[in-house]
């Protein structure tokens, strides 16, 4: 359980909140690059960390992210005309460049310097991989650009998607840290999902339903190791990294692409679940990409607004017959929706004063503790949080069989460090 004030501290990410300020120390994924596909394309509304923004790609291909509303009368610039080097409000013609600087105010005399004094609040927006990343914090504290492996592998080796999740970001993140739910919720998918099946690790999963856990403090966050019995004298380890504040990876299976997530707050009651797949040493096959686009693996089939086709308004297309047949454990199709359906069912912001955690939830307990400490250290003492250094981000999940007497942090060695051209360590 958490006290009410700690729950509020961790779940509120708007401007001026401790957790909101913590998030504003990191580059966050805010749009898929496909959402701004070409120069002068239509602007896109972006809501992130409880701020309403508008994103553009101008005539020269420069990306901009600024206050959604015109400085003049507060009109949404989503109605604007993105042309000739800027975004023009259709109401009275005020025009802004990609930095939010007003460059034309037609009602003013041609020689007026009025526009120089009008600037919408704006944030840097950069394309790395298939993702547009934004930094919403103090410009003087801006960290280096992100170096997550999935955005640094050669073209064709990664696939990224996003889906709307209608609950607070922390509920979604905690699902990414909680390795123990896989044994139940996703058990129906290990042998059927094309991006999971065929792994020897799946047999270990099935044979040992009561894994042991080791939660290891790590420079960028935590490593959560789940160990199951393997051959005599050996354990099968699945190691999940969490990097502050909202990055997790799923341990790999066989030679399937490696996957992971970002959980990005839209506001306090909604978040974007970002899901990526990549292979460190080869291009993704057409079959793999087709499966990802179809919503297999950690992805979901979505509508044009990135809301999953199975959502709470249609009861997630609950299929009790598939549940009875054992095709799905919860009756919901697909790993992503299996998670989000349950996390959304907890309510927009779950009341953690009423939960009943057990010792095997120690990963969640420790993650909350680290988030709370990081947010308060930043707010009260100006201590910069971890997670922004290249070594924090060049991290991999690992699946490995080790001798029973070997600690997993020792056994995995450098397998958890992302190195270009080096394959993932997997079973």
């Amino acid at each position, binding site marked *: 359980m958490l006290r009410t004030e700690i729950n509020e501290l961790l779940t509120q990410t708007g401007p001026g909140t401790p957790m909101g300020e913590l998030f504003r120390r990191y580059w966050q994924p805010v749009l898929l690059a496909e959402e701004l596909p070409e120069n002068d394309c239509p602007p896109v509304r972006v809501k992130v960390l409880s701020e309403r923004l508008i994103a553009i790609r101008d005539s020269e291909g420069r990306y901009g992210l600024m206050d959604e509303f015109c400085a003049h009368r507060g009109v949404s610039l989503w109605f604007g005309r993105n042309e000739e080097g800027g975004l023009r409000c259709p109401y009275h013609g005020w025009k802004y460049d990609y930095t939010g600087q007003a460059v034309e105010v037609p009602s003013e005399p041609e020689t007026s310097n009025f526009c120089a004094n009008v600037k919408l609040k704006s944030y840097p927006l950069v394309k790395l991989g298939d993702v547009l990343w934004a930094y919403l914090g103090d410009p003087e504290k801006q960290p280096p650009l992100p170096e997550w492996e999935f955005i640094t592998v050669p073209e064709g080796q990664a696939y990224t998607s996003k889906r709307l999740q209608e609950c607070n970001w922390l509920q979604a993140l905690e699902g990414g840290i909680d390795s123990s739910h896989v044994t139940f919720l996703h058990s129906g998918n290990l042998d059927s999902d094309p991006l999971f099946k065929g792994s020897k690790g799946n047999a270990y999963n099935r044979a040992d339903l009561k894994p*042991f*856990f*080791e*939660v290891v*403090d790590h420079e960028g966050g935590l490593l959560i190791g789940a160990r199951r019995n393997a051959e005599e004298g050996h354990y099968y380890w699945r190691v999940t990294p969490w990097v502050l504040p909202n990055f997790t990876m799923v341990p790999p299976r066989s030679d399937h692409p490696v996957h992971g997530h970002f959980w990005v707050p839209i506001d306090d009651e909604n978040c974007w679940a970002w899901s990526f797949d990549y292979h460190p040493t080869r291009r993704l096959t057409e079959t793999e990409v087709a499966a990802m686009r179809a919503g297999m693996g950690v992805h979901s089939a979505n509508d044009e607004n990135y809301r999953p086709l199975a959502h*709470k308004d249609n009861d997630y297309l609950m299929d009790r017959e598939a549940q009875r047949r054992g095709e799905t454990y919860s009756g919901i199709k697909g790993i992503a929706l299996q998670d989000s359906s349950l996390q959304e069912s907890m309510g927009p912001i779950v009341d953690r004063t009423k939960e009943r955690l057990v010792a095997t*939830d120690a990963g969640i307990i*420790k993650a909350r*503790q680290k988030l709370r400490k990081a947010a308060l250290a930043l707010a009260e003492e100006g201590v910069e949080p971890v997670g922004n250094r290249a070594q924090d981000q060049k991290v991999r999940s690992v699946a490995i069989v080790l001798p029973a007497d070997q600690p997993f942090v020792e056994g995995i060695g450098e397998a958890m460090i992302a190195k270009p051209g080096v394959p993932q360590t997997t079973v």
Partner: protein
Amino acid sequence: MTQSGLVSSCARAATAEEAAFRIDYPLAAARNTRVVALDAAAEEIVRRVSQTQWAQARFYSTVDPGHSLLTMSGETVPLAGELEDSNTLVLVSTNGQNAEAAATIGAACKVRGIMTAGLVVTPGQLTSQALFALRPHARILLVPAEEDDLFELLRATRS
């Protein structure tokens, strides 16, 4: 659609408004947690944590080889008796001492179906004798743990 149908739909049931109708009652009795320090430094940590008001948690150090425990007031009590109504046991180690006691306690917990957790309080060290001592007996280990982690674990599990 009937009223019961509305409540059964996920769209309606998952709203903040509906959350307000969750029944408010104690979910279960507090967890009966036993916390056992395996060495002198661990005992200092456990003693400090024990001074907080807890629901039903009890705190001990070990008397080798673990068939008895020493309460924080210095009374020797049999392990079996202290485990009688327990459902969680937390072992705390800083240096791997009393591995035999850890094994005895771990085995006793296993027989009784008591969840075991271990805190390896070795600042800055990812592998240590303490880790090896606790590993076979703890279903979940925190490595390296801090004193705070014991507080958090006990609070979070309503001990």
